[in-house]
């Protein structure tokens, strides 16, 4: 049994007329993930590598309990997140650029607010705040409203707030998207630090260098399924990761 396991999940969405127009399809349904399985253990970073629309976000949202798969199961420490979603959320941090913070509030207020919602007691809250604010330099702008912060500052604040409850499982959807080089470096360094602290990390990305630098294991996801999976050396073999990725992508397009 693995610490976090995704077993054969399938998720289908009904497309609105607007979405059908954007996707240039007449089909009213879209299979986002089909029979997707992977796992991650504590002290490990698992990278979900795939192009836009491959099903990465759907997979991660399912793990984060924001959406329910139509079939299959996801378990954390042996318990299904589908039937124990509240317990799962206590152990999970989910960060994506789509999850925003209210512009009106300060990082300090939001940290306290979300720590209460995560059932974090005051002593732990203050300790976590001190550590995370100092690590990401949030002390400098802790009392500035989120709406007045730069995108890098906002991302750092989101990161700190998502980790307020010291979760064991950290799920990041495109964690460095839209960040400047310095902030992206801070984030990737911290992911590595979390891994060394014994956290299980799943991150989705389409940036090959992030995968090569951070991930212990990687799954290449195309058209809703994992096409190849294993340690970085297992996946790429003797070839370059980029070449492997594009050859799988070509095969996938050819099969379709």
């Amino acid at each position, binding site marked *: 049994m693995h610490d976090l396991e995704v077993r054969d999940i399938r998720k289908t969405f*009904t497309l*609105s007329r*607007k*979405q059908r127009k954007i996707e240039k399809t007449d089909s009213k349904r879209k299979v986002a993930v089909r029979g997707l399985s992977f796992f991650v253990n504590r002290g490990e970073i698992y990278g979900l590598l795939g192009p836009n629309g491959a099903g990465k976000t759907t997979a991660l949202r399912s793990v*984060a*309990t*924001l*959406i*329910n798969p139509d079939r299959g199961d996801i378990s954390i420490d042996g318990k299904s997140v589908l039937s124990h979603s*509240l*317990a799962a*959320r*206590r152990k*999970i941090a*989910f960060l994506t650029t*789509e*999850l*925003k*913070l*209210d*512009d*009106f*509030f300060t990082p300090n*207020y939001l940290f306290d*607010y*979300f720590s*209460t*919602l*995560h*059932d974090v007691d005051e002593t732990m809250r203050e300790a976590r705040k001190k550590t995370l604010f100092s690590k990401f330099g949030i002390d400098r702008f802790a009392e500035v409203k989120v709406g007045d912060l730069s995108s890098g500052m906002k991302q750092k604040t989101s990161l700190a707030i998502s980790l307020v409850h010291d979760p064991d499982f950290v799920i990041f959807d495109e964690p460095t998207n839209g960040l400047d080089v310095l902030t992206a470096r801070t984030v990737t360094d911290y992911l590595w630090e979390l891994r060394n602290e014994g956290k299980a990390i799943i991150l989705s990305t389409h940036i090959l260098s992030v995968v090569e630098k951070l991930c212990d294991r990687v799954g290449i996801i195309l058209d809703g399924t994992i096409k190849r999976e294993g340690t970085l050396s297992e996946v790429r073999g003797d070839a370059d990761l980029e070449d492997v990725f594009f050859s799988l992508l070509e095969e996938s397009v050819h099969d379709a």
Partner: protein
Amino acid sequence: MHKWWVIFKKEIFRVVTDRRLVLTVFVLPGLAIFLVYFMIGTVIGGQITSEETHEPTLYTEHMPAAIEERLEERVDYTLYEGDLERSELESMIEEETIDAGLIFEEDFLSHVESGAVPSVEVLYNPAATHSSNAFNHVNGALSAYHESIIIDRLDAPEDYHVYDLSTRELFDERAVTAQGFAMIMPMLIIIFLFVGVMNIGPDAIAGEKERGTMATLLVTPTRRRNIALGKVFSLVLLSFMSALSSFIGLLLSLPRLMQFDDSLPELSIYRFVDFLAIFVVIVSTVFFIVALVSVLSAFAKSVKEATTWIMPFYFIALIIGILNSFGASATQSFLPHLAPIYGPINILAGILTFEYSVLNLAAVLLSTLLYTGVFIAALNMMFNSEKVMFSK
């Protein structure tokens, strides 16, 4: 600490610490209502004063002294000096330079005394208020003169005396005041409540979805029911305060609007229990409107879409309120009290006119709370629905 309370406090904090929102939610509604109604009252008051103090200008030809005396008894007027051609007189009356013209036949009095029938012509402009009022005075004076001539011509003047007429105005001042309140208050209360909720409701739910902050909330270990309750309770309090601001603005402008000699209307006609009944009806109605607006906002993808969904319900409430204002007394039938919006408006009118039963009041409260409960349950389901929460 209950999670709904945490969300409730955050929602309240969000509004009361934002100067822009404090201004738009709490200050502007009351201020706008006060200014609008105060100005309307001032304009109406000005018109009444103008009509009361206006001294009509009359043009006369050959007016007998007997009629002049009777006219002077009725109104202070100014005689137009100078002679006018007929066409000039007509134009000046149309232009409202002269309020009325009285053209008596030459030697009018001698003709009357001889038994002939002389002519008198009255010219006035019925489209002008001052001219119409002048005509009424002139007509009254002519009638009085006519009556005196008839009496003189009778062999036995006492024959003209057919009956003694005395009139007494019998009315309960309390009932008149109550009727006035019942006509405007239920409609205004519902409008103020709806507008109060519409000020903040769509942003608190549809706005959070639109901005992506709702998803951040949904990944915390908080039951969706608690999110729904925290949102609804905070909206109830904020909307109530917003409506209260409008109500204070209305109360302060009422003396001027109703021409009450700058004193507040007589509210002491109501007992404590009436105020209590009004209060519980208002609170239950706020809950209902908030729950309705919350469901529509959760269903919408953006604040703009939410407002579009809410607007038809606002108009329905508005129409029911207006119909109540023009209707007769509140209905006492049981079933209509179960209708949403109509029930609260009807029972408010009933309370204000002292015509309501405890059974009907209970029907309104229980049905309104039942509908609210259904909406909150629906809201909870919507928060649990990924289709609703993440639809694009």
